[in-house]
């Protein structure tokens, strides 16, 4: 199984001079001109202390929010000036989200939670469930499909959430502190899964304040005060994963 990636030569994500200002007296400038390019198939970390602007950056990349100025392109699709409705379409087709709090719907089985990743694509329920079953198999939870979230461990829940994020074959998976609510053992196995998915060709961006976790990834984009402080690609790690 391979991910549907952007056409060859088109970066999965491209930000050009993105500024985000929140109104107030004085206005708060959360992003102060961020330019960034993530190629298809990359595994990168956006790292920085709280208040550095990484959450705002996550929202803008995830098209949950619009920049005040600048350009956001996802798989070549210019999203900075889209309507709310078009942004919803971008999220349903180009982006997969993984959250720190998992955000699984209680009272719904694992397979139905994963199938929700395709809910807003207008796909028939049977097809959604079939794709969900494959995705759950992929994350190693083929035997937990009919379990509700409260019957799953924290690590398992995050795996279900990852399956939901990849079930629509997005151009980019955005993971916000994916191990933040997990003990180190479950966190480690979730990271192993993320590395495996990267090896299959998926583009994954992890937002974290954990420098140790960031250090284990091929590319680290450090944020400070709304700016990219450093952008380092570790050739050895990059090579190791290729």
């Amino acid at each position, binding site marked *: 199984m391979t991910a549907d990636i952007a056409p060859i030569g088109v970066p999965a994500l491209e930000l050009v001079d993105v500024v985000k200002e929140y109104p107030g007296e004085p206005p708060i400038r959360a992003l102060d001109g961020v330019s960034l390019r993530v190629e298809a198939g990359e595994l990168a970390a956006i790292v920085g202390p709280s208040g550095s602007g990484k959450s705002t950056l996550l929202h803008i990349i995830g098209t949950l929010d619009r920049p005040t100025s600048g350009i956001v392109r996802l798989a*070549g699709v210019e999203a900075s000036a889209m309507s709310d409705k078009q942004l919803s379409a971008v999220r349903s087709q180009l982006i997969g989200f993984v959250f720190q709090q998992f955000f699984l719907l209680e009272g719904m089985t694992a397979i139905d939670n994963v199938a929700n*990743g395709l809910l807003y694509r207008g796909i028939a329920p049977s097809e959604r469930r079939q794709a969900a079953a494959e995705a759950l198999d992929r994350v190693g939870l083929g035997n937990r499909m009919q379990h509700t979230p409260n019957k799953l461990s924290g690590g398992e829940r995050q795996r279900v959430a990852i399956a939901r994020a990849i079930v629509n074959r997005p151009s980019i998976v955005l993971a916000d502190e994916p191990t933040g609510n997990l003990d180190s053992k479950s966190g480690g196995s979730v990271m192993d899964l993320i590395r495996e998915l990267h090896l299959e060709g998926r583009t994954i961006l992890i937002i974290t304040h954990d420098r140790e976790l960031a250090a284990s990834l091929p590319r680290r984009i450090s944020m400070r005060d709304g700016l990219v402080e450093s952008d380092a690609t570790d050739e050895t790690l990059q090579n190791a994963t290729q």
Partner: protein
Amino acid sequence: MIATTATPVPLPNSRLRVGDVLRVGASGLRTRRLRTGLSTLGVAIGIAAMVGVLGLSASSREDLQIKIRALGTNLLEVQAGTGFGRGSGTLPDTAVAMVSRIGPVTSVSSIATVAGAVRRNDTISAGITSGISVFAADPGLLDTLHATLADGRWLDAATSTYPAAVLGSVTAQKLGIVDVADQLRVRINDEWFAVIGILDPVAAAPGLDRGAVVGIAAASTYLTAGAAVVPETIYVRTSDADVAAVRNVLSNTVNPATPEEVQVSRPSDALAAQEAASTAFTSLFLGLGAVALLVGGIGIANVMVIAVIERRSEIGLRRALGATRAHIRRQFLTEAILLAGAGGVVGVGLGAGVTAVYASIKHWQIVIPPIAIIGGFVAAVVIGGVAGLYPASRAARLPPTEALRSN
């Protein structure tokens, strides 16, 4: 730098299938069963009240209609006026013969009260009358009143001259007589009268229920010591078309000398008035039901507002998965409508059940107007829609970034 602005691919819009709208709306209810049940109950009570009121008033109206039909609107009652300046309380003994000569009159019968006490046997004091009156009637009365017998026979030409009595329904019950085959007798004044029949309740003349009816000749022979029994009330059956015309000439026909001493009435008018009165009460109770429904609707709005606040992260997640504002609005609106619609179904069932139970206790025909069933359900759905409108649009307006913010 190579231009990476590849041709902007127009992405197809997010889509939520109709079946999925229902599924998503219902899933919110399934996970909160107690709250769903309670807020459904609120609407159900309101709808049940309205359906019940409509059903009960329709059933009672139907019952009155049946009574009016049984009675016939072509029955007229002629009574001697009583009281100061109103005459002696009796009609001329020529009255029945005179009235029967009016063209459209189809039957006419008279009845008179005879002083007397009815007792089960001669050891009971004559002072204990049990409120039972003695009437003297002609054999045609049964047909004129459209009355029916529960048991035995009515008076005929022969038994009208003998000491024979037909008991009213209440009288028979009070005296403990259920079967004329027992060949029982009752004591009226100082004479034994054979019980030959028992009447069903008589709608046209409810006074007969608490009476014992004997023939006019027998009354004269055995109860009034030979004095003639003068008619007090005459019942007149006319053809349907000429009721008003006959009514106009009755006073003059019955008592040409002093027509103002004669009162003419139509027994069915009393039932019609009763029907009109019950309609007035129906509107009042419907109003109360509407208030209950309104309270139920407010309950649903309340529950939905709470649901939107509680489920911020679900809203944020759905937006992240690609739901548009319209999808979120539709989800919560569907939830509110399902909630109220379930209340409507339960309420209609409850209201119909109450109607059926109450009507059968009252021995009414069970009538549940279709408008109450359809209207009850539609009203509930509309209430749900209105109650869900504000919470749903509030959910839709919630910015995804705010909805996803960790608490």
